[in-house]
């Protein structure tokens, strides 16, 4: 029995049931029943069309369950009017499932959980482990999400931007348990890119591939962070970089720039540089200018200050930084780095220590503490 085949078919089957009008939770129960039946029957009697088989069995289960519930007679009449077989060829069911899971009525956390469950086909236990919460907590989060979107029917396409945001959230979770969320996000974004022709979908896919390509070099064996300039570029995944750059170039050629394409362009410039010294910081600053125009995000302006510091020298970077609110996350870390480059090691050490106290991740805090300690040790000698 091929479990990965079942897992890859599940979202599509679920999507067909939901499109035919099944309530999300009931549809999922019916699909689970069908999967159990498949595990029982297929080894002796494999179907020719696995997905068709699952749709037929799941739909029958759904109808049985609905009929059994007398209080829901009205809905039974409704579903009986639906055509019983043959998915409508013009509709991409899985795409609708993406939109349903990223519905604006859901909180980001619920949208993420539901997407991983319904589109990704992950078990509740796998999702709970990836997010380090109890399985019961995640089960509640998912069932609330299902209730929230129950009754939502799609007669027009949803908002791609919302779906992209959900996938970006999944990718950005740094955890990896038995499920690697970054890999899972790439897999789902690939599926989406195959279904929807949108430059920002391509932009996000390129961005993920380019960042993922550098992943092995980003942390030392002890888990500590390795800054970009010190990474062993031989450990970057050149195939993923080439794929990301290709996807990005095709997207940029369509002249509909969005923030994911611009971010991917920055990542591509880093990935292209044979050494840190050869990084094209001037072009990176230009992309950050585009990003600032597109998003007006303070984080973008902070990153831009770093790029300006590399392109035009630390003094220019500090001048760009001076225009920003110093309560921004990582503001002190950036200031510390620019002062260090400028040769003011005492100020740099003080700011690294301050940045370490404000850091939100353990690896980042340790990294900044080490930098402060290194500068202080040098000052004492």
């Amino acid at each position: 029995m091929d479990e990965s085949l079942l897992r890859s078919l599940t979202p599509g089957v679920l999507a067909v049931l939901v499109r035919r009008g099944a309530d999300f939770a009931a549809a999922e129960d019916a699909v689970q029943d069908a999967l159990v039946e498949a595990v029982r029957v297929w080894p002796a009697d494999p179907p020719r069309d696995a997905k068709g088989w699952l749709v037929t069995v799941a739909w029958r289960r759904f109808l049985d369950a609905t009929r059994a519930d007398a209080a829901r007679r009205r809905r039974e009449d409704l579903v009986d009017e639906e055509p019983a077989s043959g998915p409508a060829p013009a509709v991409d069911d899985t795409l609708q499932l993406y939109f349903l899971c990223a519905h604006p009525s859901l909180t980001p956390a619920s949208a993420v959980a539901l997407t991983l469950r319904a589109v990704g086909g992950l078990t509740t236990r796998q999702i709970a482990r990836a997010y380090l919460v109890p399985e019961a907590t995640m089960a509640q989060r998912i069932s609330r999400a299902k209730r929230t979107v129950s009754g939502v029917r799609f007669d027009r396409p949803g908002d791609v931007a919302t779906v992209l945001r959900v996938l970006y959230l999944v990718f950005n979770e740094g955890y990896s348990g038995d499920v690697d969320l970054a890999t899972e996000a790439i897999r789902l974004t690939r599926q989406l890119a195959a279904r929807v022709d949108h430059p920002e979908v391509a932009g996000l896919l390129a961005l993920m591939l380019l960042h993922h390509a550098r992943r092995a070099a980003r942390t030392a064996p002890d888990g500590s962070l390795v800054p970009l300039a010190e990474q062993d570029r031989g450990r970057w995944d050149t195939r993923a970089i080439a794929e990301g750059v290709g996807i990005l170039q095709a997207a940029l050629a369509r002249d509909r720039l969005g923030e994911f394409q611009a971010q991917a362009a920055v990542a591509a410039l880093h990935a292209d540089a044979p050494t840190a010294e050869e990084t094209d910081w001037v072009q990176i600053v230009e992309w950050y200018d585009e990003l600032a125009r597109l998003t007006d995000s303070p984080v973008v302006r902070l990153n831009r200050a770093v790029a300006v510091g590399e392109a035009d020298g630390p003094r220019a970077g500090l001048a760009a930084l001076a225009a920003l609110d110093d309560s921004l996350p990582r503001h002190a870390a950036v200031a510390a780095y620019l002062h260090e480059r400028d040769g003011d090691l005492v100020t740099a050490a003080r700011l690294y220590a301050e940045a370490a106290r404000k850091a939100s991740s353990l690896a980042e805090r340790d990294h900044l503490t080490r930098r402060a300690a290194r500068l202080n040790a040098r000052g004492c000698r």
Partner: protein
Amino acid sequence: MAKYLLLKHYRGAPAAVNDVPMDRWTPEEVSAHMQYMSDFAVRLEGTGEFVDGQALAPEGAWVRYDGEGRPPVTDGPFAETKDLIAGWMVIDVDSYERAVELAGELSAAPGAGGKPIHEWLEVRPFLTAPPTITE
């Protein structure tokens, strides 16, 4: 989502508004307090925001290494001078604002006279794993 630790103190926190020691409450008031805390946890399980929670015994000791071949040092019978944590709850919420909102609700648990205690709770974010994208 981000995880936060809500800390309840026996001692060490600023004084509560309705500051009457629990042993002076009526048994009904104690029960109402416990019920409130448990209802709160159940409700957070329902919203998918509950991670874990435990109560701690008031007895605790400072312990310290005292050199090779010697038993660890403990701080002796003077425990009443130090901060003490009564219990904690870990929540996993969408925002810092939500964490503060929930801590505020927990602080409204009823105490003496059936009135909210208005006790101070400490809210501390967990350090996370680094996000996939930082550069």
